[in-house]
């Protein structure tokens, strides 16, 4: 332990704390507006917490002259409150008006913005109303200047009305200069030593001014008490619910940032990594930076599955980590979402909370693939990284997701490949045909077999037809005969490297590889359609 403290790690730890936690440099790199928002809320909130909410404990211990109604504290409270409020306003503008693409707003985000707004606004209203309140004034006057004569009290009250924002129907403007003078003297003798001028709490003072036409009625109705309850309760609710809200990131994010600054994945104990990952799920502030830069974002645009966006995967993963079951449609969506990822690591690089998303995806992905429904995406080059990491998965279960996907996508057409089957040569009415533009070139094929001869996949096998079902030239021929479904069942279409040797060497300019692509699209579309029918028939719920 000591060795750790005195090693270079402490430097890295401090550096991460100052630059990434206190100054949030990653957010600054993304957007100045966002950084300003976060800084305003973070610093405003922390300082309010220490100086105002915990003032008697923290500030008292640090500054012997602490008195909340004296400057600079009186002024600072308003300043900090205003900082948070300004940050909240920026947050609202960003989330609800700026229409930043892929910045998703969840109910948690609305709650966080809402509770902060209620705490701060009720605070300002409370102190604004307090400034105008005759009852408050009378109580204070009685306690601190009870021995003054009736006339002197009048003068004091006049002075407070004219200079300190008090609203009272007992004294009437205009005030004579000597009365104000007398009031000022009384103020300086009895009030000023522990009450800074109300104007220095500039925001509360302005609030009071705005409210002053209604101040009398509010005072009689006991608004000071009501607002105090609202303010206190909202603080209390915010605090009590904090562990379950995204505000928990006040704690979990610094831990994550600092742990990731010094932890070495390869040398750490697996249980430590696992603990950190659970904390990490809570460290996500749903800021959506990851989704703004996600390489697979166009996959989201094409498929409109929000779980493709990294920021949106956190919530379902959290639910799964908590042992909650997702319904069939959600499970399917999260499996697709977590697999439609190019493993580019960009999300991990940009996450201001320093979450190691890359590791999170890798760990969750395999489990979901194994337990979830068939996912056609595993038949694509998105599987490259899974292949690279195959040694991390037990060899007996590694192929299962691939087999599941193959079964869902192509296996149903496979019986059509049976050589003993009599072939129906009348093209199915309205049957599927790859028709999109230049891919529709199979009809030029005259069966020279060049494509199959140059195909390295065909060349790899002694018994290619057994392995691949149909060879490229046979696929072109089947399409010519209208046997599209038969072609969709050929394993060849999924074992194609997309190396374009066949297409390059076809004397008839048949776009062999492009046609194989189209067959893959049709086979996958069959799965999607089947699922839609299943869902519509009430298979879900």
């Amino acid at each position: 332990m000591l060795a750790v403290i005195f090693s270079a790690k402490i430097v890295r730890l401090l550096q991460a704390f100052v630059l990434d936690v206190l100054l949030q440099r990653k957010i600054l790199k993304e957007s100045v507006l966002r950084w300003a928002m976060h800084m305003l809320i973070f610093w405003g909130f922390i300082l309010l917490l220490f100086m105002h909410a915990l003032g008697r404990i923290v500030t008292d211990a640090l500054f012997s002259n602490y008195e909340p109604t004296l400057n600079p504290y009186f002024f600072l409270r308003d300043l900090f409150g205003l900082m948070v409020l300004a940050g909240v306003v920026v947050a609202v503008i960003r989330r609800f008006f700026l229409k930043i693409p892929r910045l998703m707003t969840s109910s948690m985000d609305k709650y966080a913005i809402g509770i902060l707004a209620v705490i701060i606004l009720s605070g300002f209203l409370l102190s604004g109303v307090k400034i105008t309140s005759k009852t408050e004034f009378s109580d204070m006057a009685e306690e601190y200047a009870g021995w003054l004569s009736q006339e002197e009290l009048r003068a004091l009250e006049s002075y407070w009305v004219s200079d300190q924002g008090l609203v009272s129907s007992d004294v009437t403007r205009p005030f004579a200069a000597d009365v104000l003078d007398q009031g000022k003297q009384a103020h300086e003798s009895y009030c000023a030593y522990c009450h800074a001028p109300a104007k220095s709490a500039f925001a509360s003072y302005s609030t009071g001014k705005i409210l002053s036409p209604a101040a009398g009625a509010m005072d009689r109705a006991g608004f000071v008490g009501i607002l105090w309850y609202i303010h206190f309760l909202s603080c209390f609710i915010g605090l009590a619910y904090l562990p379950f809200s995204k505000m928990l990131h006040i704690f979990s994010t610094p831990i994550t940032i600092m742990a990731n600054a010094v932890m070495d994945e390869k040398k750490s104990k697996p249980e430590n990594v696992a603990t950190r990952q659970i904390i990490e799920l809570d460290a996500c502030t749903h800021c959506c930076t990851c989704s703004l830069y996600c390489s697979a974002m166009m996959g989201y645009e094409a498929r409109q599955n929000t779980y493709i966006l990294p920021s949106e995967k956190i919530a379902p993963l959290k639910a799964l980590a908590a042992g909650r079951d997702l319904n069939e449609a959600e499970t399917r969506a999260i499996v697709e979402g977590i697999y439609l990822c190019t493993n580019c690591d960009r999300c991990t690089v940009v996450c201001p909370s320093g979450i190691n998303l890359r590791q999170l995806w890798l760990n969750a992905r395999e489990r979901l693939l194994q337990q979830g429904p068939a996912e056609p995406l595993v038949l694509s080059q998105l599987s490259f990284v899974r292949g690279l990491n195959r040694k991390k998965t037990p060899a007996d279960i590694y192929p299962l997701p691939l087999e599941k996907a193959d079964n869902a996508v192509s296996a149903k057409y496979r019986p059509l490949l049976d050589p003993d089957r009599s072939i129906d040569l009348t093209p199915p009415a309205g049957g599927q045909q790859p028709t999109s533009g230049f891919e529709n070139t199979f009809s030029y094929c005259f069966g020279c077999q060049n494509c199959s001869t140059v195909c390295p996949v065909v060349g790899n096998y002694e018994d290619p037809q057994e392995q691949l079902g149909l060879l490229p030239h046979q696929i072109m021929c089947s399409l010519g005969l209208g046997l599209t479904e038969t072609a969709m069942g050929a394993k060849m279409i999924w074992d194609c490297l997309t190396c374009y040797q066949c297409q390059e060497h076809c004397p008839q300019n048949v776009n062999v590889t492009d046609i194989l692509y189209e067959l893959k699209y049709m086979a996958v579309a069959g799965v999607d359609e089947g699922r839609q029918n299943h869902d519509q028939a009430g298979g879900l719920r």
Partner: protein
Amino acid sequence: MMRYSFFIGCQIPSRVPQYETAARAVLKNFGVELADIRQFNCCGYPMRNVDKKAFLLSSVKNLALSENQGLDMLVLCNCCFGALKNAEHIMAEKGPLQDEVLGKIREMGLNYQGKTRIRHYLSVLYHDTGIAAIKKQVHKTYKELNIAVQYGCHALRPSSVTQFDDPVAPSLFDELVAATGAKSVDWTNKLECCGAPLMGTNDALSADLFSRKREAAIKAEADFFCTSCPYCQIQFDTVQQMLVEDSAGQKALPSILFPQLLGLSMNIDPQTLGLGANKLDISKIESYLSKDKE
């Protein structure tokens, strides 16, 4: 001054970062300026097998981003290059899918007209910089070094779309290698696929295809593979290392990225070129370098 938007894709930053640093270092010496566009996303290649719309949207968005800055695009990865080129080709036709893609692109405040030229790293070096200019910057030449170049499918084919080089008898990569003094050997499987596209979907087949290539390269007495694509490089480096570990007695044929090979001969330091980041040790390559030319 040549200026391009720099497209590095997904695999390079996460798995072959030395390709980027080496490529940048080399281009800097030739006065090629690179603009980084942070909004670039995946080229669409990995989704192309299963979702044409996702593939096209991904590619076209990148092209539109570059086009809107009035820049041609310089691409390091063969598969990105192929995907972008194919997308451009598909978008040149009219159709409902094309319309849908254009609509989405417009919604993002971008405009796509197909004006950006998509250039492969090797093409820029060969055509824009030129062999003569490269030779001038080569301060040390390799002596008796045999290189097996890996062209890679998605740069070469379909040639009508990629227009990279002669698909049957390409020479661009060989000439670039020869400019460093190394010898580009002839080998039987030179123009074939590295096997990477099936990695993860049919690992055995993928490994077979690679092993065949290695046998051919060794037979042609190559000392190193040389690649210009992160997928080929991962297959020849990371995957080969896995395969060698699994089967005792196999001899590895390490692979060097072209900008690493060229960079060393240009006296760029090995650290910048990230020689140490390769999985299989390639430090031996420095022993083939001659003394500085006077």
